[in-house]
């Protein structure tokens, strides 16, 4: 056996291009302490919400058997109780389910719709592009939250309608991001080369445009989630989103407002959780931007 053959046989197999990119992404992301902190907070909040039946100390919907508006530090009720004697910590844990869902689901759904519309507009161009973008332009004429309120006004309050309204208001913003990314890639040499080699439109989109459009959309979507957690909490606070007695952070602030003069903690504690969750998603969004966009690296 020649030395050359031996060298080839003993050499470790080279990682594929995709796994190298993933490893670099993970390395850059993990270097950002804020992003890791954000991820840990999201994991704790999301994990607690998922495991609510196992870890929640009390039933979030019924009175815990102590006096109403018990203060923070009451034995058995670390964060006290609300105006109906319900354990605040338990409601926060259960509330994460609705609050995180109404923050995340509309953003992801809007991202998927935007991916379709943005790729269509950017790739086809011409009349299709013009019609899609001009139709979406009208939505930019309304402040985001006010448009969501007006849509809920038309279809009626409730959690599903709240998520629908938030999805509708986000689609134009995400579509713009996808379209811009598509336009910046579609005329690059490697796409033109694939087109010249006879690649079908499906292959061009699937193999060349999509992988280049997804990172900016992912970064944008991750930063929107924090904003949507705040916005959806706002709609629930106003009584237009998640309806009581379903536990939700925005609903909890709204209910706590009624007893603000007697027990401020009922409204302030859920608000702190909203701020922390929104911050966590923003940290992760910044980390993703840095890891996915080489130009953003410090």
């Amino acid at each position, binding site marked *: 056996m020649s030395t050359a053959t031996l060298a080839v046989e003993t050499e470790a197999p080279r990682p594929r291009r995709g796994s190298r990119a993933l490893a670099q992404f993970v390395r850059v992301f993990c270097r950002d302490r804020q992003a890791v902190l954000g991820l840990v907070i999201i994991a704790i909040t999301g994990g607690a919400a998922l495991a609510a039946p196992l870890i929640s100390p009390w039933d979030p919907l019924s009175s815990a058997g102590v006096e109403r508006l018990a203060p923070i530090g009451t034995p058995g009720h670390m964060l006290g109780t609300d105006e109906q004697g319900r354990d605040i910590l338990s409601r926060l844990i259960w509330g994460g389910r609705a609050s995180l869902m109404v923050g995340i689901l509309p953003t992801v759904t809007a991202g998927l719709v935007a991916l379709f519309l943005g790729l269509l507009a950017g790739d086809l161009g011409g009349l299709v592009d013009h019609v899609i973008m001009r139709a979406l332009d009208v939505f930019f004429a309304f402040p985001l*939250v006010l448009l969501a309120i007006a849509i809920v006004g038309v279809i*009626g309050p409730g959690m599903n309608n709240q998520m629908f309204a938030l999805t509708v208001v986000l689609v134009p913003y995400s579509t713009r991001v996808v379209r811009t990314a598509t336009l910046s890639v579609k005329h690059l040499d490697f796409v033109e080369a694939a087109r010249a080699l006879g690649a079908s439109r499906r292959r061009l989109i699937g193999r060349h445009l999509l992988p280049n459009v997804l990172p900016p959309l992912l970064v944008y979507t991750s930063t929107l989630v924090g904003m949507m957690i705040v916005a959806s909490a*706002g709609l629930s606070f*106003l009584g237009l989103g998640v309806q009581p007695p379903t536990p939700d952070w925005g609903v909890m602030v709204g209910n706590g407002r009624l007893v603000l003069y007697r027990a401020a903690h009922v409204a302030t504690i859920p*608000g702190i959780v909203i701020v922390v969750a929104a911050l966590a998603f923003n940290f992760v969004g910044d980390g993703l931007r840095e890891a996915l966009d080489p130009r953003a690296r410090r």
Partner: protein
Amino acid sequence: MTVYALQRLLGLVPVLFGISVVIFLTMKLIPGDVARALLGPMATDQSLAQLRHALGLDEAIYVQYGKWLWRALHGDLGLSPIVHKPVVELLVPKFGNTLILAGASFGLAVVGGVTVGLLAAARPQTVVDRTAMGVSLVVGNMPPFWLGLVLIVFFAINLRWLPSLGMYSSRGPGGLEDLLLHLIMPAVATAAAPGAIIARMTRASLLEILGQDYIKVARSKGLSERAVLWLHALRVAWPPILTISGLQLGYLLGGAVFTEEVFGWPGLGRQLVSSVIARDVQVVQGAALFIAVMFVLVNLMVDLLNLYLDPRARPA
């Protein structure tokens, strides 16, 4: 510049047309019969048909739209079936109150945001910079309704310095002083998040400019840091700061809905929410139109101001 401004103004026509179509069609999608809502469940078929004819509801949709638009252009947005008042009469005073809150909040957000951004950019990577940016990050993620409640807890309940509800005290003297006292907390709550974004933008844009050659020249000429910052850097940093401030107006109008609700401020946002809850479609339609037109006009004004301040942005 004048030609461009006129072009932009003309460009608003299709946008405003689009807004009116969207608002009109959306309201038409609402399930339920307006005539029945107005006459109640005991109305006869004949009276319902008569009212539908009188309101033009039996006409083709494009005819209904044309008539609605014509009336809207003449300041008639219909009658609220819930409060039995003309929508315009209901909205105009509320609009004025929202303008007071939005104007004060915008001023506060710009002055506060630019000041904090300046302080941070003047001492980059120091305790001042890190504290300013850390605080602005947290404040930028605070829901305005929650911040409003926290302010009430501190300044109205504990310290008893400021009133927590309404525009004027019910038994107070009224007047400007009373209004300003009532305005402080809602304006701070509304301005906080946009102000935080303006602060971060100001810092970023100033730091970028402070690294440029002409700043190095200014420093090497022996100019003080204050002169470099105020006379040379800030002048060039204004356009992006102004653009981002203009973009915050939408956020500010959205935030004002929550603070109006928390502080009982009788504005357009609060009216919109109560009309949504009461399913008063006519008022929701009118308020949406009011807000959209205001938003579009304000954005145009910001764009034109930007052009005036920054010759580089002007079209060739």
